[in-house]
């Protein structure tokens, strides 16, 4: 557990000059992100913006094969294995850049995490996840499910078929929600105006909350069924 001092200096947009050759990159045409100094090709302090890192437009529907190709290509350029013999500072940037690359790949390849990331970047507060509030349209089903769960917990195995059935029904709902999300992603990507995008993101947030709620239900049913040997 060595301390690496990665945050020893502020990494970020205000960094203009190459730390090694001192060159100020031409202000235009603005590269979305330059990992390396254009002049001496030295690795620069990385900026933790996942879309910029992958040089991708801020879209929600992503081509996963393309994302993987970029991930591999960037790994080859940035991985600490490639910097064993480099200067200490460049080794530090390599470690930091690869961590951002890996974190970013993990987030961007998963539609839900990707959407949450975009929401957060757009200023939505995801901290309060009130997954306890039952979405109104699910009230009835959730009520019945909880009854069956209580029966199972009290040792009544006759609740099992009903639980299996409602789990299937909720899983189907999840499939539908994912379809709905994909549709919203495309709408988002096709909207140019900021405001239109914002409205769509609000809807996406609602869908995500509902999705999270149902997912929790499904895993609770899974857990109880496993715990009671069903």
């Amino acid at each position, binding site marked *: *557990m060595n301390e690496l001092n990665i945050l020893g200096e502020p990494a970020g947009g205000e960094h203009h000059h190459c730390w090694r050759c001192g060159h100020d990159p031409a202000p235009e045409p603005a590269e979305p992100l330059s990992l390396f100094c254009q002049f001496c090709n*030295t690795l620069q302090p990385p900026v933790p913006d996942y879309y910029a890192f992958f040089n991708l437009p801020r879209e929600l529907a992503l081509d996963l094969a393309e994302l993987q190709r970029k991930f591999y290509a960037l*790994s080859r350029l940035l991985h600490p294995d490639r910097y*064993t013999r480099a200067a200490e500072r460049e080794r530090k940037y390599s470690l930091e850049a690869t961590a951002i690359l890996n*974190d970013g790949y993990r987030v961007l390849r998963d539609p839900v995490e990707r959407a949450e990331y975009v929401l957060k970047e757009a200023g939505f507060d995801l901290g309060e996840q009130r997954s306890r509030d039952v979405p109104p349209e699910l009230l009835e089903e959730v009520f019945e499910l909880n009854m069956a769960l209580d029966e199972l917990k009290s040792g009544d195995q006759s609740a099992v078929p009903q639980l299996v059935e409602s789990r299937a029904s909720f899983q189907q709902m999840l499939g539908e929600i994912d379809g709905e999300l994909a549709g919203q992603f495309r709408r988002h990507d096709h909207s140019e105006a900021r405001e239109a995008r914002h409205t769509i993101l609000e809807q996406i947030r609602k869908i995500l909350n509902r999705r999270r709620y149902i997912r929790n239900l499904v895993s609770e049913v899974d857990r109880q069924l496993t715990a009671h040997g069903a």
Partner: protein
Amino acid sequence: MGTFQIDFGGSAKKRIVGIDLGTTNSLVAWLDGMTPKVIPTPEGDRLVPSIVSYSADGTRVAGEAARALQIERPENTVYSVKRLMGRGLEDVRDDLKMLPFRIAEGSESVIRLDVGGKPVTPPEVSAQILLELKRNAEAHLGEDISQAVITVPAYFNDAQRQATKDAGRLAGLEVLRLVNEPTAASLAYGLDKRKEGIVAVYDLGGGTFDISILRLQEGIFEVLATNGDTHLGGDDIDERLMAIALEDIASEWGESLSGNLEAIQTVRRAVIEAKHQLSTLPKVTISVDYRGRVYQRELTRELFEQLIQDIVERTLQPCREALRDANLTPEQIDEVVLVGGSTRIPLVRKAVEALFKAKPHTELNPDEVVALGAAVQAAILSGDVEDQLLLDVTPLSLGIETMGGVVSKLIHRNSTIPASATETFTTSVDGQKNVLIHVLQGERELVRDCRSLARFDLKDIDPLPAGMTRIEVRFLIDANGILNVTARDLRTGKEQSVEVKPSYGLTDEQVETMIRESFEKAEEDFAARQVREARVEADNILAAVEKARANPAWLDLSDTERAAVDEALNGLQMVYHAEDHHLILGQIEKLDAATRTLAESMMNTAVRQALKGTKI
């Protein structure tokens, strides 16, 4: 790649070796051209037993020499030390039951073995094994070796990895990378064949079990999921057989061997031998000969398989979990690679084949494949291999303790490393100057069910009203799977000092002290080693002279010549037990000189005899 490679002080010339630091055996390998090769010991062995023996004066020998002393001084000869790396006393109670070593006081967070009159920690013991490998590599390659890649079980936690790194430092090796054993094995397999597809590596060694699932594509080895058990391996099988043999012996000989460490080691050798033979034979005999007393028992493979069935079963659940985490079904696995000596057991092979529905690869020696892969990784780091890259994962989730003893996960298991997470902390009391962060590893929800990794103390916070200070803490797992923590005060932008209190293992200061001490000790060790070698040489010449005195040529010598030989002989016997190898070697030289005429005369006689026989 496009970056400039700048040579800093000639460091680019240094060779990096790959080391498999195993529970039972260890190996060192290097990349010769494009071929990874195991470096043999000066005696020509490829495996170095992971055994270190301490003598009463604190000097140490490792490897085969230590193995030879195992029966003679069992309580001071340490084996399977890997099981104790990075662990606390509570973790290893079961292990210690089967290991014959005494534990010293104060072993709660770092185990201290009471051997050779002084407590030693597992990293210090491992360092002796590494030192032996380092010397072998230096002798073989004819150059100083100071940098290495060392392999660890994929399922090793932070403390176990840190302990391995400490062992390297203690042995004078800069550990440039810790590589997971199954991943290293995949590198060894993937080097010459341009393979693409999904590969499962099943690694059952002496003390640990790992399963890793990888995607191979265009030279990238991407680990998708890993799982395992750091307390499962061939040692457990040995224990089963030991229990049977010891029980038999107790009833046949009418006395229990418990407490008789020497006898127990003898029995252990015998059951391990039988286990090995059962991989090729349907029926073997466990055969113990201890001080004239004999125990024999037939063991069929059928019975053996019944005995170990549940151990083999225990490896399958981690495999299923790894498949699930990788989001794959067994049918999607293209290839299976077997690693570790225990995969020679036919039952293990059958179980793996049944689970993955694929015939496992066994082309490479399962004892050597990890070291060969470590050599490939070493060459990747040195830049000699450019088209391959390993992307590994962290085996365990990392989290922090929150209210009510609950763990909040920050980095999930099977995340590609390096991986990071950021969390903001604040003060809860006016004027608070410290914030303590408890970091844990594990998959469970509650603190008590996870493994404490360390406590990080954010110190010297400006005393402000509660909640005014905001400190951003960054948790970063590096490419070795080891956690680094940094913190920044968001209000001032200044770096925040963090004091690390590891829950298990040594602090940096302790390692530094050990390094200083071991430099002093190293000279003694070296001297002891030279004395031992000189005595072996003396034994050889004494035996040869003894034999020569029975030769007719002895009588052909003049009285003065015979007296000179006898004098030199006495001289060598006088200094034989001296602790100075110069003295012994000096007398050997004198004896050698005094017997030269005798040797020539014997040679001539032999030639005459030979000519007589040929009848020209």
